[in-house]
């Protein structure tokens, strides 16, 4: 008897490598399963309706959207600068602006405190001259989130601007376009999918921010206590609520990643 093997052009992975890959998948899947196994599915809706929970969710959404908007507003010019202008110390500037991606968020929060806190480097002047005290306000939440989220926008958009052909900008200029007109009509449309991807990634990062927020903004319900903070605090006194909130965040983040996959990893929309 002859066995016919399927015609395959891809070579199979060596067995040990396959086993390791499967373990890695399980490593990511198990915690989710753990959460779901303990989830109080019947009480989920009522837990989500609790004022504290709704407050935290609302605060999280508003602050993370602000952080995303600020990341885009400041991140886009910065990405353009890093991608298109050569200047001394560019790699140092790039490292500085993306440092918070790899920095422990708590360290970021402490650093923000020493810079913008009441007795911080800049914060003391804000306090003295403008009567602005940033720490432990909702604004501080936005600042902390922006601090950790903006690098994701910068990195994504800078890569796209680098990939976009600078020749198109040259062509626009020879046709009489000012640099602003060319940026608006030629460069921006070329990097549209990266703008979306960068905004979504930085939003997701801001939405899940914990360390910098709790250090710089504290954890005041309704003011600075975002969803991740309330998950952490609920672990002590109300595990069910913690699980429901955790699952809510998992669902949101998962949905964002899946929605993003085609646009971003799939090379974005057609460039035709």
């Amino acid at each position, binding site marked *: 008897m002859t066995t016919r093997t399927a015609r395959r052009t891809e070579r199979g992975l060596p067995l040990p490598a396959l086993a390791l890959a499967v373990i890695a998948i399980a490593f990511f899947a198990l915690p989710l399963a753990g959460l779901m196994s303990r989830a109080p599915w019947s009480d989920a809706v009522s837990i989500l309706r609790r004022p504290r929970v709704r407050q935290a969710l609302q605060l999280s959404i508003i602050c993370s959207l602000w952080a995303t908007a600020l990341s885009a507003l400041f991140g886009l010019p910065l990405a353009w600068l890093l991608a298109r202008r050569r200047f001394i110390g560019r790699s140092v500037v790039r490292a500085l602006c993306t440092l918070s991606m790899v920095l422990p968020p708590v360290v970021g929060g402490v650093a923000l405190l020493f810079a913008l806190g009441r007795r911080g480097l800049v914060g003391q002047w804000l306090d003295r001259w403008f009567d602005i005290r940033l720490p432990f306000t909702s604004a501080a939440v936005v600042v902390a989130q922006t601090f950790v989220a903006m690098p994701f926008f910068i990195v994504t958009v800078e890569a796209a601007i680098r990939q976009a*052909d600078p*020749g*198109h900008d*040259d*062509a*626009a*200029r*020879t*046709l*009489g*376009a*000012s640099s602003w*007109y*060319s940026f608006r*009509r*030629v460069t921006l*449309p*070329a990097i549209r999918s990266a703008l979306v991807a960068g905004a979504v990634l930085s939003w997701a990062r801001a939405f899940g921010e914990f360390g910098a927020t709790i250090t710089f903004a504290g954890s005041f319900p309704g003011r600075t206590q975002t969803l991740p903070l309330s998950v952490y605090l609920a672990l002590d006194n109300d595990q069910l609520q913690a699980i429901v909130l955790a699952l809510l965040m998992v669902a949101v983040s998962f949905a964002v990643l899946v929605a993003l996959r085609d646009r971003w990893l799939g090379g974005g929309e057609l*460039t*035709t």
Partner: protein
Amino acid sequence: MTLRAHIVVARGSLNLDVWLNAAPGEVVALLGPNGAGKTTILRCLAGLLAIERGSIAIFGDVVDDPASRVFVPSERRSCGVMFQQYLLFPHMSVLENVSFGLRARGVDKASAHQQARDWLTRVGSDGLESSRPAQLSGGQAQRVALARALASEPQVLLLDEPLAALDATTRVEVRRELRKHLAGFDGSAVLVTHDPVDAYTLADRVVIVENGHVVQDGTFVEITSHPRSAYVAELVGVNLLTGSMMGGVFAVDGGAMLVVATDDVDGAAIAVIRPQAVSLHANRPDGSPRNTWRAAVIDVDHRGERVRVRLEGPIQLTAEITAGAAAALSIKVGLELWAAVKATEIAVTLN
């Protein structure tokens, strides 16, 4: 002069120092090897690159002059540029591409689109208005790029390798159209190419650029008979004859006939004959070369071991022979002799 430029700029290992003039209606070809600085010259003229010394004036207006701190940026120069890869904006329709220059200069949408449509018709691309650049063939993209460059009615038209990206068949057709549009263009046109045939068919004057310097400037025939460098002799110093092909015979404009080795092309054509392929004889040669004719020497250019001999007769071209052969024939101006060229040495390209 529409265009008067002295461009001095350093780019990497290239030290560019060239003088370039062009009269209204004149088409100047910049011909030279890759890396000679041709594209850099265009970028300086277009204002995409500032010169370090020298000056550039368009219709008498100085647009770049480092000594007096004048630099008019690209968007305020009247230079239309057709880039080598066309650089059509990929996210815009053909109509939006062609009207871009007008819109950027503040023309309202309706009339910009109307003018763009007119230009598309003129370059034979109507019907493509709503297409995206990625949907266009090479020839179509070239025409659209030309329409886009011309639509803002520039005083100077700069074309960087306008035919290089096209396949052989499209090239012939597009070259013919381009010649028509260049003939109808009032301003000066500067054309970068490394193909002598393009330079010959499209330009009134050829400027040879080698290693950042102009090595020769003149009409094609002047350059073929007196190439001033080895490169010029080798690559540009070829004989180009216009005429037409029919049934394996090339009829040179003016009446003479040449037998060629190809018989699969018919119509307006250019014959390319290397000067080394033209042999000279005191008496009528017999044997294989079927293409023989009486010619008179009108110019002799001694180039070391080689001699370039400009011939007049039914076919005007330049022959290159060894110094020994020239001595044996006692070549001098006024001498009458026989010229011959083998059919296989004639390359024919449609015009």
